[in-house]
């Protein structure tokens, strides 16, 4: 079945099963492989993208439910990869293996797109859906505080 989507500013058409999770549309139909599969049940956050700027677990959204909403993936977060969150991630040298990081960055970017986190508790609440098996949480928190500080 054909679906028209807006992905990273581009209009695309894909021909997929209608229950295909957005994650697999991105990875297999569009070869946007920056968004990762971790669990398929929305429990780990590796698949996080933005739908109209809202952080969303793309493994849990069927393509038929996306509609007109703008899809932003890690590849489209910033044209030169220079989003404040990405800069902060580089300044704090956050990643180890890196597999969870696109999802972490997308969740953090959505958090900071609003008025930003008031305190660590808000950071924790926003980021606790993103697992990191390598344990880079300490640096993720520091990077978010750095990016939030820059934004002020």
């Amino acid at each position: 079945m054909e679906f028209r989507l807006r992905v990273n500013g581009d209009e695309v058409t894909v021909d997929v099963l209608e229950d295909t999770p957005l994650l697999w549309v991105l990875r297999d139909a569009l070869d946007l492989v920056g968004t990762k599969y971790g669990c398929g049940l929305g429990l780990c956050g590796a698949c996080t993208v933005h739908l109209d700027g809202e952080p969303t677990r793309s493994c849990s959204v069927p393509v038929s439910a996306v509609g007109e909403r703008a899809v932003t993936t890690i590849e489209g977060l910033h044209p030169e990869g220079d989003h404040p969150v990405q800069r902060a991630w580089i300044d704090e040298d956050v990643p180890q293996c890196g597999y969870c990081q696109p999802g972490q960055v997308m969740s953090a970017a959505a958090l900071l797109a609003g008025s930003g986190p008031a305190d660590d508790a808000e950071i924790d609440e926003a980021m606790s859906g993103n697992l990191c098996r390598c344990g880079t949480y300490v640096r993720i928190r520091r990077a978010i505080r750095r990016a939030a500080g820059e934004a002020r």
Partner: protein
Amino acid sequence: MTSAGGSLRRRDFLRISAGAAGGLLVTVSLPACFGRDDDDPLDTPAVAHRMDGYLEIDTRGNATIRIPVPEIGQGVRTSLAMLVAEELDVPWERVRVTQSDAVDEMGPHPIAGGSWSVRAYWLPFRQTGAAARAVLIGAAAARWDAPPSELGTRGGRVTHADGRTLDYGELAAEAAAATASVDPETVALKDPADFRLIGTEVAHLDTPDIVRGATRFGADVRLPGMLRAVIARCPVYAGRVVDWDDSACREVPGFHSTVRLEAFGGEPDRPYTVAGIGVLATSTWAAMKAREALRVTWDEGPNVGESSAELIRRCRAMMDTRLESFREEGRVDDALAAAARRVEAEYSAPLLAHSPMEPMNCTVAPTAEGIEIWAPTQVPQAARRVASQVSGLDADQIRLHVMRSGGGFGRRLAVGYVIEAVQLALASERPVQLVYTREDEIRYDHFRPLNVHRLMAGLDERGGIAGWLHRQAGTSRYAFREGVPLALSEFRAGTWPAALAASHRLEYGLVESNLPRGPLRAPGLNTFTWAVESFLDEVAAEGGRDPLELRLELLGADRELPYNDDDAFSTGRMAAVLRRAAEGAAWGSPLPEGRGRGIAATFTFGTYLAHVVEASVDRSAGSIRVHRVVSAIDCGRVVNPNGVRHQLEGGAIDGLSAALYGELTVEGGRVVQSNFHDFPLLRSSEAPEVDARWIESDRDPTGVGEPPYPPMAPAVANAVFAASGVRLRELPLLSETNRARLRGDEA
């Protein structure tokens, strides 16, 4: 090409040739520092093997260093490059890295494991950089008609005393044509006092690509005509296919075919890879859907009786029999009988799944020559060897590209997923990308073994340890190997702390099980340390001693003791990390009500490490909160402080996650858990701050990837005891039983 094994003639040690883009390619062959790797899944016999450094300098003076060790997040692409770049004397901005394919020139064992990469390559990679520098100096000397001894280098340029300089890029082409006689084994290395890079904070080279989503992992490989595959396997381990019906699969658009896979390796009742039905489709989602539509009739096989509850029961039953004495010094039974006081405790650790964030995957394409493989693996040469075995192809017909791993933790020391992918590609004669779902990943892992420890100590009047008896029964991961003492698998019976007691005995008993087991971060030590570091605290409490002070007294005067066959244990270095962590945590100073500190230490792969954990217990909720970890490490000379800090932070959090939640259970031969709702990992809201410290040292570097992991569980349990008076002896600490203990529900 030089051949593996045998002796190498001196003139083969350095090869100079033209690089791909007209610059200089230097390859250096050097004797390796290590013998056979402990966790080679195929038990390759030790050979006199080489490690080869590869360094290419292009005409713009950029240096590309080929990294033989897989990157699993331990930062090896950066740390090994630093070793070459330092001696080459090239600015860091001009350094690039590429990942080596699995090729003969890598030597047989460049594995990501054993915390060994920096330790093993410390000398050979520095020699590689220094040899290339000498070749470039030689080229400049020829051009200037000056003696090489009057030339130097700085920042990627050869320098003459009279002020003339030449960039490496300008010299690269003519250096390639030179017939320099540089011996990399004797070339002069920098005095560490002159290091400009080693010992400085260096960000990981791949970070910018990672945060842009540009870094490719195994399942990101895309090939024309590539099929995706998942495998249906019997829910009972090693069950066999009786029949299958894929008629409903054909209703799924994109479905391609099913392929029957035979079990491979191991024994019929405990194969290395299990039998199954591969489901192939043109998209990953279609493959997953088709697998759900597949009907398979299984013969559940011989393992329906396997269960973790049964294994624990058998471990305990074995404890009541006579175990094999693995090591004994002094007369322990007499010491225990005569002791003023005795302390006795039983500890247990469950099976554990590795569950890295990136599930297993492997892409295989048939080619004109043979096959091409893309695999995230910790053991490239073993992966290539097993692909050769499965396919019948020679190794040189197999190209294996080593992909970055989304976490290793020992999971990717196993190569079953490579076997399966090769089977599927050869059967379908198409490129195939095999992926594991999270459920597959948790259920078809090679688990960290389960074991039970019983310790007994006899104390003298001062609370010192007169006798130490450590008995362990468990499911050794060496049970399928010949000629290796089983005790060595999960019973790192080195020196600390047993041999520091006046007398000691270590005993081991194997509990038979067909369930697949494998190495997990700090194998053996990850449960051994749980038992001994918790028990040391119990001994301290019984004897009225401070846990830190008891450990320091046990270590005694600064001296070296033999450790296994090939290493030494320094009591002074162990004492130093204990003191450093304690100092950082203000050990002994008052804490608010309900908070406690726990200390634990380890000697892992030549590195000393201590954690002090500060935790509080919510008695009514039966929960534990870790507020802070202070870690002190002695890993010899620190190559990249940023990398060491990463591993102290990450290892502490990984260790904490396993300590609080880590448990894999089996019932009726089936794994109970399936995804992160019932196999939880620590979340960011639970992650403590980690204060990372290290001992300044000019000893050769030892590893940092594994040491931070084992002492976390006992440090947390010791902190819980300090905070609440409740002693927890079974992992995971937040099991239902332990929560009840914390709430005071149980006696």
